[in-house]
């Protein structure tokens, strides 16, 4: 498919291919949004380059995708906004099913803290060097990751130990 990139996005893509030629995998568009897929190893370098050199100073969201039954099962997407150029860019990395680990970008954008915790909580993707790595929605000793595709819709029976609401009766 032919890409229709604006000047600033083209500049971004050119700079990224130049600077991170080994990590850069593909750029594609879908319904008007631009997605750039890179290798996960240098995500911190790529993100700090995007922020410091290309003005993507606002991190709107980080979220995970479960590509169930595909190779490289998990995907993490960074939704970056360049406020100066009025552009939105999606940065993607793919992670393997066994031990998905990624470096944290909390040093670059503080807002990544809760977003990464949410990705961990829902998909079990771990983030290195995160300052406050805890689960955010589910209890700390919950062994499952609810947004994974194999997680049953009705929940895992007996997975959460509920407090006894009628203590008098045992």
């Amino acid at each position, binding site marked *: 498919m032919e890409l229709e990139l604006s000047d600033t996005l083209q500049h971004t893509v050119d700079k990224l291919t130049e600077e991170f030629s080994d990590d850069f995998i593909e750029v594609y568009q*879908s319904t*008007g949004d631009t997605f750039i897929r890179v290798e996960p190893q240098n995500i911190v370098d790529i993100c700090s380059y995007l922020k410091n050199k290309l003005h993507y*100073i606002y991190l709107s969201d980080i*979220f995970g995708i479960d590509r169930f039954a595909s190779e490289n099962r998990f995907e993490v997407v960074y939704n970056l906004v360049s406020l100066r150029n*009025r552009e939105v860019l999606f940065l993607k990395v793919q992670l393997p099913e066994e031990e998905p680990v990624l470096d944290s970008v909390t040093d670059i954008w*503080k807002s990544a803290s*809760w977003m990464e915790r949410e990705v961990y909580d829902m998909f079990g993707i771990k983030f290195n060097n995160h300052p406050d790595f805890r689960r955010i929605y589910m209890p700390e*000793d919950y062994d499952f990751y609810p947004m994974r595709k194999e997680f049953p*819709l009705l929940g895992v029976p007996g997975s959460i130990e509920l407090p006894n609401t009628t203590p*008098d009766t045992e």
Partner: protein
Amino acid sequence: MDKTKITDQLDSKFFEEHQNKLYQALEDKHTTVEMLDDEDPLSTKMVLNMGPQHPATHGVLRLILQLNGELIEKAKIDIGYLHRGVEKIAENKTYQEFMPYTDRMDYLSPYSNNVALCTAVEKIANVEVPERAHYIRMIGCELARISSHLLWLGTMVMDAGAVSFFIWTFREREKLYDIFDHIGGHRFTISHARIGGVANDLTDDALGMIKNFVNEFPQELKDFHGLLDRNKIFFDRNREVGVLSTEDALDIGATGPTLRASGYAYDIRDFAPYARYDEVDFEVPTRLEGDNLARYYVRMEEMHESIRIIRQCLDKLPKGPVRTDNAKQAYPSKDEVYYSMEGMIHDFMMTDTGICPPEGAETYHAVEGPKGELGYYIQSDGTGHPWRLKINSPSFKNLQALEDMLDGESVADTVVIIGGVDPVMGEADK
């Protein structure tokens, strides 16, 4: 009855571990959590648990505050009490079926949420929306913004100590409920927007009520201004409280009025116009102070701007259909369903399978909700259910900013700062 036995039972493993992790998170090189300190008999240093059911936390929000006397040294926020897994639900429902769930996320402005989902689905499935539907949606969204800001105003002023104000803002909201009743048939959770347009056209009654509201509300707003702007108590409690600088606000990902009160005019209606926002004139209210008072001014001015937008929409409201005429993309009208076989079949197909975006398509679309950027990311696998639907909710990001804003403030101001950020837990907990 043995009392210790009950506490043993209640403090099960699950709560203890969760608690310990939270207290661990509070500790860093500046603060330590000491539960019972013999050398501090007056307990000037203590850990205060606020919520999750405190009336001032605007939902089930738990704050763990490490105090030194009256000052907050460090604050941690514990969310997750309401986690309903709406993203998981969305992945197991058709797009249209998921719409009523969006009402219940930010339940203070259901209309904006409906529109947010609809525009995202329309973008991924390439659905054309008739002109009139766009204007009706804009009217609905701006009414929802006023409704949400009115509730924020009432509760925030109540947090600052004035109770009767809450009742006055609710009197105005009551009028909005009546309008929504006439627009969509429901007072609270409206679900009026449909993929491909809106459910039904505005009736003459509804139009008349909206016109009345637009004419009368500015006077009410002026009265609110008159009461609060020169009120020394309100002024002193909000000024220089919960200050968030522009850099910090951008760094921590604040959005909506919280970001704009800190000095950055980032508004999706202006940044990436959807519906017909590029055809109406409005300002993006911005303040530089970044304190609670600035957030108050920004939201008050936004209500003025909303009225201005509604007026222009009413003037420009074109004639025509309110839903796209393609039966593969939107529900047929009830007339067709009742009186033609094709209509009934299409209605059944829309309910059963729904709209099917192309396989492998991905999209992200955001609207400016009352609380900030409300975005939907959808990934399709070619069926009627989204493969992945991610909600980028403004309250989640604003609450994260709240965690930073609380550090160094006093306990008494906590309540006002929470009120100023205007979180809705249904949206943050998703």
